[in-house]
């Protein structure tokens, strides 16, 4: 078998999914441009203090991947770089890149993997929760940064009580996000459990509609948070967050008890809906890829990681996904690219 190793791939986004994709394509012997708009690789995972369901520090995983990428000479990492434009030229894409300091570079590639990740919905659309009004109302990624600070000791002011709200945006048709964001049940359990672990004196409440723990070791994970870390799960959606005595008063209903309740806390953490990054749609248009009504990338029929001709995708730009799933998808997209390149090489002979 002969293969044409002159094929090149472009991977957009160096989060977990993009890194995994680039690594697999590069390891197969093909050149890869790994383009990342931020100055460092790692994406959202960079912001995480801990992963579920095994309480692992994702830093070790990231460092391992970054080392492997740096040792793979087929991969050219281009951080601080964005895609300015792209056009189709036969079976290739001609892509204009913009680097820091307005430097530009043009590259030609034979396949593209989009791995642009996700972001959180702006939680201020719920005025009643006071995000953007009260400083101690955070979204879950901002809270992850607090966990890092409490763990390292760089922040000493700690809350006596924290309330976590799930489904903030997700499953709310009136806000335009009728879907379940899938990862929030698990990361909220993780964050509440870590709060109890790092700050044993601090109380943690999770307000939920129901919890969805479908995954290997997931149900056990949530149960352990409730049973051994003593996080108080309250079934009911909070109605309001009000300032009270320098703290925050959460007004909610406990639907299991059938009573309205009030809980005074020092911090509220909102598990905002996972939404696609705004640039994903623009990138999809440049490369002839498909997006759905929310702006997530959409797969072609029967192929879960293809979104256009010679365009593949992986990770949370397709839909919210946990760390292990993002890696799996990155590897799957890479397999598609490698198969395409191998086949093209054989046909050329």
């Amino acid at each position, binding site marked *: 078998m002969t293969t044409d190793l002159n094929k090149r791939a472009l991977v957009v986004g160096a989060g977990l999914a993009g890194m995994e994709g680039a690594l697999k394509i590069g390891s197969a012997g093909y050149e890869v441009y790994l383009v990342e708009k931020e100055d460092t690789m790692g994406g959202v995972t960079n912001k995480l203090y801990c992963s579920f369901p095994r309480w692992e520090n994702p830093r070790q995983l990231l460092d391992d991947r970054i080392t492997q990428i740096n040792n793979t000479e087929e991969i050219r990492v281009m951080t601080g770089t964005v895609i300015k434009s792209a056009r189709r030229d036969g079976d290739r894409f001609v892509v204009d890149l913009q680097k820091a300091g307005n430097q530009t570079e043009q590259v030609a590639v034979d396949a593209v993997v989009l791995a642009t990740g996700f972001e959180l919905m702006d939680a*201020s*659309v*719920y*005025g*009643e*929760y*006071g995000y*953007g*009004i009260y400083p101690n109302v955070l979204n879950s990624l901002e809270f992850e940064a607090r966990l890092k600070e409490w763990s390292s000791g760089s922040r000493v002011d700690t809350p006596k009580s924290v309330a976590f709200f799930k489904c903030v945006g997700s499953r709310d048709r*009136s806000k335009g996000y009728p879907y379940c964001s899938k990862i929030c049940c698990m990361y909220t359990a993780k964050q509440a459990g870590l709060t109890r672990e790092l700050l044993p004196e601090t109380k943690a409440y999770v307000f939920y509609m129901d919890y969805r723990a479908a995954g290997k070791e997931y149900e056990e994970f949530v149960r352990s948070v409730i049973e051994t870390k003593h996080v108080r799960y309250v079934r009911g959606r909070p109605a*309001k967050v*009000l*300032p*009270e005595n320098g703290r925050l*008063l959460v007004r909610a209903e406990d639907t299991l008890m059938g009573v309205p309740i009030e809980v005074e806390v020092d911090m509220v953490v909102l598990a905002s809906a996972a939404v696609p990054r705004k640039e994903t749609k623009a990138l999809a248009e440049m490369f002839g890829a498909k997006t759905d009504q929310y702006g997530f990338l959409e797969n072609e029929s029967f192929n879960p990681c293809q979104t256009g001709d010679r365009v593949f995708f992986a990770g949370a730009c397709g839909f919210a996904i946990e760390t292990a799933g993002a890696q799996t998808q990155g590897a799957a997209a890479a397999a598609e690219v490698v198969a395409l390149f191998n086949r093209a090489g054989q046909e050329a002979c």
Partner: protein
Amino acid sequence: MNKERVVAPEKLFPEVPESIFLFRSCTGSMEYPGTENAIKEVMKILGINIVMDPDQTCCSGYLLTCSAYKPELSLAVTARNLAIVEKKNLDTYMFCNGCYGYNRELAHIMHEHPDYKQMANDVIAKQGYHYEGKTEIHHVQELWYRLKDQIAAKVVQPLNGLRVAVHYGCHYLAQQYNILDDGGYPTFHEEIIGVLGGTTVFYKERQMCCGYSVGRGFTHKETTVQPHLYKKFKSAKEAGVELMTTCCPGCNVGLDREQPNLTERYEEEFNIPVIDISQLIGLAFGVPLAKLGFEANTVKLDRVLEKLGIGKGDSHDH
């Protein structure tokens, strides 16, 4: 703030109307006639012509909420009222959250379901009316916000830091789309009160319901409404509120009329007068007291007027 669903006042009113149709409110006329009068006086000062019509009836919201009639029948009432406005080629301005909510809701239903509109038109055709659906439905307070700068320029009796608390009313804020502010955390009334020279007070239970619709007039007042209102007034009192404003006569009834009962039951004096925001603008514009109709209030404004230096016999009363 919820920016996505909020409409800028300039977008809601690209141009300030020369004339508006002012939609009478049953509760307003019966309980606090001073509100309608204050709106007329303030509009006169701002140069906006008010048109009304004696044939306009109740908004039909009461028929619906009391389950007295099927919505199909109250649709005809709405269609008839709006048909009267359309004949005058004007937009409709409500000063009651109930009128605003029901007219908007029912007009929306007729807009989205032409067969319902036809049904309503079949009923009102017997009286010679026809509703097309072209009159836009606004709340008077939205116009106040649009004219905030003009209002600021016309103030002759600044409120001198009077501690004013706002009550918005659920039936305005609960509208899902096309309202002026974030229903979860509104602030536009506070801005209006600010330009009148008042100090706005963000009391804890600011967005708690007035209690009117949860049964003031019906049963279980003691178990439902009074504990609820006690909580609201307690937090307003603790925040040092001297005056409370509403933008709905129903809210005004709930908050004003019930106060003596709260005092009797809980043995605690609140003495927080409640008036419409239009009456407060009228006060700041120097409209004579007699035209603002504060006599209708259960909780008297004596303390407020004294603080502002307005009394009987003042030039204000001429």
